[in-house]
């Protein structure tokens, strides 16, 4: 059995378990769905408030910004579905020593920690976000080419990779500093900035979001693909950024794991 098929079998087992677990908490689903709808409506109202005073935000029209907002919501959904319950739980596992039980198993620990839990209901956030993007796209009145659709799919995958890499990086700090739960709050605060196109920010912040905390690649680029702002060069760069972010986070994970001396030893 190859490593890949083995990983897929484990992933399927995780999914089955999560469905079983989540079915016990259907009430959660309604609450989180209502929360997301409320959030989306509020966000769209805020944006329309901006547009009473200006026809453009960093060169983006109203419906263009709503396309981006939908992508932001879909990514936030990915965070809630996979990252927060999975890798976000790493600091607790390090502190309690529960990570030991993962490390003695014949499975890649980063894979295990990252995908062991899926808050399946939050997938609704992803759907809802993409639906809002789709609706806003129709409102822009543009036609989409096959290549633009492909570019969107690729850059959206890159966005997920970048967000994942940021989480792995932040959570790996647990191996050095043990108590890093607040890193998740830090991510939430900074990720808020991805609600608007990066061109709407002044130069220094733009530099920060493109090069240092690469959240510009998460929403602005996929939204650019849908609003005719993405050129092939930028799309290639985006793919490179995604691969580099994943690679860097993998290296950091390995270094961190080497350092790991389990709690209570």
């Amino acid at each position: 059995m190859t490593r890949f098929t083995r990983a897929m079998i484990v992933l399927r087992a995780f999914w089955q378990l999560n469905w079983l677990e989540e079915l016990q908490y259907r009430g959660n689903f309604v609450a989180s769905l209502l929360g997301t709808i409320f959030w989306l409506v509020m966000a769209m109202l805020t944006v329309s408030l901006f547009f009473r005073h200006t026809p453009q935000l960093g060169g983006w029209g109203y419906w263009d910004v709503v396309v981006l907002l939908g992508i932001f919501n879909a990514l936030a959904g990915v965070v809630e579905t996979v990252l927060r319950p999975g890798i976000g739980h790493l600091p607790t596992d390090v502190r309690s020593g529960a990570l030991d039980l993962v490390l003695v198993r014949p499975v890649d620990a980063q894979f295990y920690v990252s995908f062991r839990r899926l808050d399946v209901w939050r997938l609704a956030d992803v759907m809802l976000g993409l639906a809002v993007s789709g609706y806003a796209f129709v409102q822009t009145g543009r036609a989409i080419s096959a290549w633009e659709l492909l570019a969107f799919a690729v850059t959206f995958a890159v966005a997920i990779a970048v967000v994942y890499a940021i989480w792995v990086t932040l959570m790996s700090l647990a191996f050095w500093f043990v108590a890093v739960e607040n890193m998740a709050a830090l991510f939430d605060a900074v990720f808020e900035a991805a609600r608007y196109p990066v061109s709407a920010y002044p130069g220094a912040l733009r530099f920060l979001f493109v090069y240092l905390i690469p959240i510009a690649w998460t929403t602005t680029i996929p939204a650019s693909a849908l609003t005719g702002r993405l050129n092939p060069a930028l799309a290639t760069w985006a793919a490179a950024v995604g691969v580099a972010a994943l690679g860097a986070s993998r290296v950091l994970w390995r270094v961190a794991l080497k350092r790991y001396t389990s709690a209570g030893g």
Partner: protein
Amino acid sequence: MHLSPMPSAIVATELSKTYDVKVRDPGIKGALAALARPRYRQVRAVDNVSFSIERGDAVAFLGPNGAGKTTTLKMLTGLLFPTAGKAQVAGYDPWSGGNPFRQRIAFVLGNKQQLLWDLPPEETFRLNRAIYGVSLADYTTRRAELVELLLLGDLIDKPVRQLSLGERMKCELAAALLHQPEVLFLDEPTLGLDLEAQQTIRTFLGEYRRRHGATILLTSHYMADVTALASRVLIINRGRLLYDGELSELVARIAPIKRIELVLSETVSRARLEEYGTVAHYAPPRATLEVPRETATAASTRLLTDLDVADLSIQDPPIEEVIRIAFGETEQDAEEDTVRTDVQRAPP
């Protein structure tokens, strides 16, 4: 050199592990000072430990809390890198053996659980089947065997959160054995369990080893675990291996004693108690006597008839006592040791 047809299941060669522990004075001032200029103290958790265990043997690793048992187990399972030394487990180097190595071992920790809290144990079993790549046929046979030997019955269909500690531990063991590991590491498997559950687990481990020829290395600080499961013991204290040999020899060496713990309703002088055995502790109304194993029952009967006794119990000496009696370590030795390590402050 003697060549055996099969290599040993576990070989540890001069294993050592030193931790850097941050030291700080108590209080806010101490915390601030530690933040500004951290000081470290080196703690030798495991000091030059060597032993080897043949395939199919069960060996108990005994020692008081903090003796280095768990650290040694974590090194042998590949969780911790040693500061010095080598090891071989199931034919692999634990630190580079990767998944093929992990496939051949199981590590059960009495104080940590792998069972999924909200679901029945059966679901964790299924997950483990996927992780260890166990075929459905093997899974079905092994599951049936484990259910039978561990007396699990319908426990595996109840959510884990509804199970008692003992029931959970039995299910933990089953979950850890579905891939039929060659070497089984158990860290305090009976910790905090009621006597019945302890007994089931002991019987089970013995039977499982006989059936499958698994090698077992378990840590405990209960003498009862050892007498039931292992004929050979390793005694470790403050990181050093003090004894490696037959359990019977050790028992002979400690000149088998029992402890009688007394609560008295009347005031009895220390001298008077000395008539019944060696007084280990005397703090009226409580007292502890040490008596030879064979005469423990007789001494208790005499105590009960002669004196006004409110409560009496006969116990095995705690493992700390065994070590003290067998190896003549005194409290003073322990203090000197602490002072010495305190002085060795390493730069960060």
